[in-house]
């Protein structure tokens, strides 16, 4: 079994900043002290998430793919890059060798194509029925990514209802399974 040296290294960095650097800071420099704590908190967040980066990007890609598939076919003029982004997204998701970067790029391309579509449908001469349908799908589907991201960033302490957020591992697993099965998570 290989040890996790990234996790170990980040832990050592946090300890050095907390035990060695923090006490040596100028007492007359509150910004430095505040920022050191923010750095420690951020490293701690990253340390708790390194094993989950791949799962997160896969869920994000699945999320946008599901959104695009729910929308279905649309006039090419309104979304010239959507069909290609869907093909690339499906291929990337089906590739077990695809790492974090290609997954992220494929998800980003889908988000861009979907955004382009929504923008185009906002034009005064766009089909109002299609616009209403697409907008409703985007709003409805967006909760999956919201829940994943809430769980991801929970340790930073911004969430007004932290007790309502499940552990990030569970949220990712639930969202991934639900999206793969074509149903809503939760």
């Amino acid at each position: 079994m290989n040890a996790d040296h990234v996790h170990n290294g980040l832990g050592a960095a946090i300890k050095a900043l907390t035990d060695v650097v923090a006490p040596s800071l100028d007492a007359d420099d509150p910004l430095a002290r505040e920022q050191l704590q923010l750095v420690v908190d951020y490293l701690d967040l990253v340390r708790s998430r390194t094993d989950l980066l791949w799962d997160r990007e896969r869920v994000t890609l699945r999320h946008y793919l599901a959104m695009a598939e729910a929308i279905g076919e649309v006039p090419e003029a309104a979304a010239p890059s959507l069909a290609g982004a869907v093909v690339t997204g499906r291929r990337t998701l089906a590739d077990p060798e695809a790492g974090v970067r290609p997954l992220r790029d494929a998800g980003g391309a889908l988000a861009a194509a979907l955004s382009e579509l929504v923008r185009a449908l906002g034009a005064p001469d766009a089909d109002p029925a299609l616009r209403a349908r697409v907008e409703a799908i985007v709003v409805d589907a967006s909760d999956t990514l919201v829940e994943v991201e809430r769980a991801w960033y929970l340790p930073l302490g911004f969430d007004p209802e932290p007790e309502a957020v499940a552990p990030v591992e569970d949220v990712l697993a639930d969202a991934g399974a639900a999206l793969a099965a074509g149903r809503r998570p939760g």
Partner: protein
Amino acid sequence: MTAAAVDRDRPSAAFIEEMRRRFPTERETDALLVRKLRRRAGPPYRRIAKDELAACLEAMLAERLDGPFEISDTRWFTGGVSKIQLGFTLAWDDPERGPSRDRLMVRMDPSESLNATSRVREAELLRAFHGVLPVPGVFALDADARWFPEPALVYAFVDGVTKPTGATSGKVSGLGTNFGPALRERLAPQFLDHLVRIHTFDHEEAAFTALDRPRAGTTESALWQLNRARRVWEEDRADDLPLMEVAANWMERNLPATDVVSVVHGDFRSGNFLFDEATGEIRAWLDWERAHLGDRHRDLAWTTQALFGHYGEGADRGTYYVCGLIPRDEFFARYEEASGLPVDHDALAFYRILNCYQIVVSTLATAYRVARLGKSHQDILLARVKGEVPIVVGELRQLLKERM
């Protein structure tokens, strides 16, 4: 255009002009956003030493003050995400009071800020509200960065805290502060009274040069604010988020007319006032940089934003406190009674959506861009505010769902 289609780290002149054409807004805001983009390809922010900033201050005061003066006790202040703040003591000969010692603050932009805002506007608002509300007195303004590296404002230092000492809640920027029952009781009536005073202030008599006045009975104010937010989204983002485009479409279709033009503070919430912990007296309202003339519902929606308040504890668990101070159910009724101004729930819904949209613009787009380019003194804090994004996007989604 998609996030990847434009080099936002080095925006072209054509891109800048396109933003101006597509999203017309207030003249001062337009000038600030153009300045931001033109300077973007410049070097990252370099931390300025206290002595360097004190030297800038000395140069400015040497031209502004008659007679000798001495600057001492310079010290950094944190608080706030977007501006650099240095406190100091000035010994000088005030023509009115004679020999004086005043505690003052320098408030200066970093190279690029979370908010491209105007020190001129901030100074005009502080001067206008002197004697109307507790605000710090303006001492000097360097509008064009003649003495300081960036535009700067010098104003009176005010004693006080933004949250109770030892508060367990309340994050770096003062969001979600839990004041506890005793302080809440003292602070809440002042908080509401001050909001009412801002919205009922007679701005027709004020000599504002950095604020444009929208016409009452039109959608002009809503459109300027929407255009500002959409423009910054286009200028700063690195991500695409389809929900943001749905929100923009919906807002464009549902611009509300402003019934009464008011001064809008723009960031009226806990964390932006200083109070005396012993007496519970509000000593100063800060952060007027987002103030404008427009629709009071913008403030009402902002103040009641979910990020800024919290739920009660124990038996009070079901009560949501606006800015940690006033139960949400009471807030609007008490405001209407005190101000004589109605709360229009359609206008409120629009500005709730706009505010969520604007917070996502700041926390997802601008914070990323500024931190990526190392443009501020608070890059690590800006990287961290990504944690706010899902909460606000969730709220935005819910608000749209209710209205579509």
